[in-house]
């Protein structure tokens, strides 16, 4: 459980970090909170010759809510998101999900950028970002570009991010209406057996918009258009919830692990999705 030797870089500016990445190519990796990367290095499942620590880059930190938009710097920790009063007002679903991640020690270190960039299907923020229809800003040697969270994830650990790029921030329109992040896990510190993010709005007794996304139920987060569509236009009655659950479950492809076999997860997913939708409806 000891990582192989590596060079440690700690640039003070984004430019410096990009420079190290450019110089060493795929032998270099950025380090955020380290709570996904360092365990992999200790297990020697990740070999990293050059580690580029982003913690001194002030531009990558902070939460801004302005003009109905929420912007969160990549190096903002989960703890900071939970503690943010601005975020609690603008997007309470973030804290609801973040407190269900790992334990306080991990949340003091783990960052939103690391969580979404990592590409681990077990991470909770990617599904949530898809639910919120967030945009990720990636900065590389050729400048900056934006990728929608819903387009970012290709397969486990494979994302739209190029090796030379750094994810600098995420942003999304401050949601309105009801929300819920529901997660089943074996214990504190565990990744999800099944988790689901729901954000929806209602007007005149009818659901007017609904977004449903799931965590750890496929090799990427799963956003289900069909589940949202099954709710929109309904009153959110039991039949609509059931139809949405059926649609969402149809989109997942869980695999068995120590949490249980696929058929179990499929069933649990249905329950968790149903509970998330029901709770979101009750808050709308």
């Amino acid at each position: 459980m000891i990582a192989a030797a590596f060079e440690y870089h700690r640039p003070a500016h984004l430019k410096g970090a990009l420079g190290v990445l450019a110089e060493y190519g795929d032998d270099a990796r950025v380090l955020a909170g380290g709570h996904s990367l360092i365990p992999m290095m200790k297990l020697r499942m990740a070999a990293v010759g050059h580690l580029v620590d982003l913690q001194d880059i002030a531009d990558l930190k902070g939460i801004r809510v302005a003009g109905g938009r929420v912007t969160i710097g990549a190096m903002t920790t989960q703890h900071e998101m939970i503690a943010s009063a601005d975020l609690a007002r603008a997007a309470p679903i973030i804290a609801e999900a973040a407190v269900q991640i790992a334990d306080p020690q991990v949340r003091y270190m783990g960052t939103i950028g690391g969580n979404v960039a990592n590409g681990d299907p077990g991470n909770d923020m990617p599904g949530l970002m898809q639910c919120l229809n967030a945009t990720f800003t990636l900065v590389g040697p050729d400048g900056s570009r934006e990728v929608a969270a819903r387009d970012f994830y290709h397969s486990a650990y494979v994302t739209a991010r190029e090796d030379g790029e750094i994810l600098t921030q995420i942003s999304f329109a401050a949601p309105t209406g009801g929300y819920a992040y529901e997660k089943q896990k074996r214990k504190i510190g565990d990744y999800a057996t099944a988790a689901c993010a729901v954000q929806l709005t209602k007007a005149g007794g009818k659901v007017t918009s609904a977004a449903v996304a799931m965590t750890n139920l496929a090799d990427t987060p799963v956003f289900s258009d069909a589940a949202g569509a099954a709710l929109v236009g309904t009153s959110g009655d039991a039949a609509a919830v059931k139809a949405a659950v059926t649609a969402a479950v149809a989109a997942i492809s869980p695999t068995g692990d120590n949490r249980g076999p696929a058929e179990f997860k499929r069933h649990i997913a249905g329950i968790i999705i149903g509970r998330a939708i029901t709770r979101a409806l009750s808050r709308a």
Partner: protein
Amino acid sequence: MNDLTPTPQERIAKLKGLGTSRKRVEDARFTQGKGNYVDDIKMPGMLHGDFVRSPYAHARVKSINADAARALPGVIAVLTAADLAPLNLHWMPTLAGDRQMVLADGKVLFQGQEVAFVVATDRYVCADAIELVEVDYEELPVVTDPFKALEPGAPVLREDLAGQTSGAHGARRHHNHIFLWETGDEAATNQAIEAAEVVAEEMIYYHRVHPCPLETCGCVASMDKVNGKLTVFGTFQAPHVVRTVASLLSGIEEHNIRVVSPDIGGGFGNKVGVYPGYVCSIVASIVTGKPVKWIEDRMDNLMATAFARDYWMKGRISATKDGKITGLHCHVTADHGAFDACADPTKFPAGFFHICTGSYDIPVAYVGVDGVYTNKAPGGVAYRCSFRVTEAAYFIERMIEVLAIELGMDAAELRAKNFIRKDRFPYTSALGWEYDSGDYHTAWDKALAAVDYAGLRREQAERVAAFKRGETRKLLGIGLTHFTEIVGAGPVKNCDILGMGMFDSCEIRIHPTGSAIARLGTISQGQGHATTFAQILATEIGLPADSITIEEGDTDTAPYGLGTYGSRSTPVAGAATAMAGRKIRAKAQMIAAWLLEVHDGDLEWDIDRFVVKGAPERFKTMKDIAYAAYHNAIPGIEPGLEAVSYYDPPNMTYPFGAYVCVMEIDVDTGTHEVRQFYALDDCGTRINPMIIEGQVHGGLTEALAIAMGQEIAYDEIGNCKNSTLMDFFLPTAVETPHYTTDYTETPSPHHPIGAKGVGESPNVGGVPAFSNAVHDAFRAFGLRQAHMPHDHWRIWKIANQLGLHG
């Protein structure tokens, strides 16, 4: 006498003796991070060792090439079996009469097995060098199921035993068979069961788990070539036994070996055995002349050092129609892994499993245990229980539940009907144990009243009805347990470890100014010995517990003892402490008589002093006497005030308890919530109620872990699936329920102060209580038996198979 003269109550209070909730003296250093654990030990020039481990569960080792590793700067040596063979240390004897590879000798038999030992100037270099050792493996067929291991065509695991038709415990009937151990009267048991009105039969599996102490195993071995002394600091639950084994293996005379257990961060049986890491560190230190440290990481600990349980228990229990038990038959298929390294007293290859008649008066019984080799890690230790006692308690407490179902009877009533009555103690069980004391009905009635058992059953019935009407998706389980333990091994006449009788010891020195040091043959791993043993002594010799230092764990200073496990410290070393204290008092009485110029028969002991009978104003306190012992020339009495006692217990002690767990189960998700847990323990005389409560809380939490999620499982090719704490369940404060503790007090008649030991009761009784709650929740829907651990998936599966998911 005046107002300033302390009253007897004040004098008793000042001692902080028996029955006082004295704060733990250890905690000052532990809570400030000032403990001294083995990994805190740093010696000049110290080297570090670590293992190349097998990725395969069964493979031939065709070659090992360590050239590249040796060439790495900082690497001092790479040891393989070939290097140890000339010293005859490539194998070592196990505590169970088998032998075990220290380093892979031609083949590996479990994933994580030690293949080569790299010694380097620091841990980082070790880790790099391990990657550079090239091992050429040829994979062999793997067997991880003990039933398959006994099939005729099963792979041969232990080629070293080829042709050996008998082992340390009798005949071997198959190449993967270790022993069949039997006790009781099988013919009479079968007869009773065949003749019975009602018979319940069930396979009860107690899965493989791991003690997983927070501190993993490790040592620092230091051979001083100048004076010829070997010092080994390590996480040893039995330091003296380690010294003797080290001497026997190395040929170094025992007086030249010093074994020290510093602070230990939990043991739970995991630190009883001797591991390859100790042997390799010692050899490496002898070879290099430098201290060598070896510390396991978490994965090493979970994968390679001793597991616990893994018992497949096939039971048959019979009764009359109205619920009087008439017989119990049990056959166990015991999965011991690749080597039989169980830590049991020598004559008991299945430990004290035959306590499995439990709290019940069962006229006839039989137990047979088949030990089997598989491609899994060796071990089989008593994880927070006396030897195989938790398996026994789980077995009988499940069988009682199954019988209750068969009889259509309430499980609490069935228990009460069959308890050994108070007037039957000392009671000899059908399997030969002599239970020292007990009052089961009183404890049981108190427990049932405390939880309003009848009310709970009513609520449960209403819940079932509501569930059936579709009004709720939660079920209510009421988990009952009445356990009887057997602890305090043990009488030298039948208990030994590697030939060493299982006595224990205490040596006391009273200092001239009236304080004292006592040294014991045991070693605390968190139990609080420094607190409680001082309390025993305080009451015996009348000096305040705060003036008594307790020291354990250094074989150069402590008297010989067999160590701490199996709840034996209080029953055995605690008894030795009281007996040594009484020797002190006997001498003190003579000194007091001389000081008071009376005959020693004219004195009586009074809390902290000897008083002239009938003249209470004439007395000498123990403090006065201690001073005199060193300052006065007393005719016919040697100076000084010291005593030593080696205590050979006449019998084991039999703590018992009544536990009730009330659990809510979500049928859809398989999740649970413990709504209430009531634990009544009877551990005889209570030395420190606060420590008892702490022990019960800790033991119940470990029981929760075992019952509800903890396991060491393997896939079909022998990969260990739970080698990190992500997948091995250790509860946090969030998962831990609230516990209510209670007690009755039935002293042991043969123990000097009547104490029985409590550290392990909550694990022994807790596991069946949690598990029975799960089972009980589904009883109304036809569940008889579902194996632990009851994690979300497995509870969900119960509901699913019972058709509760619609």
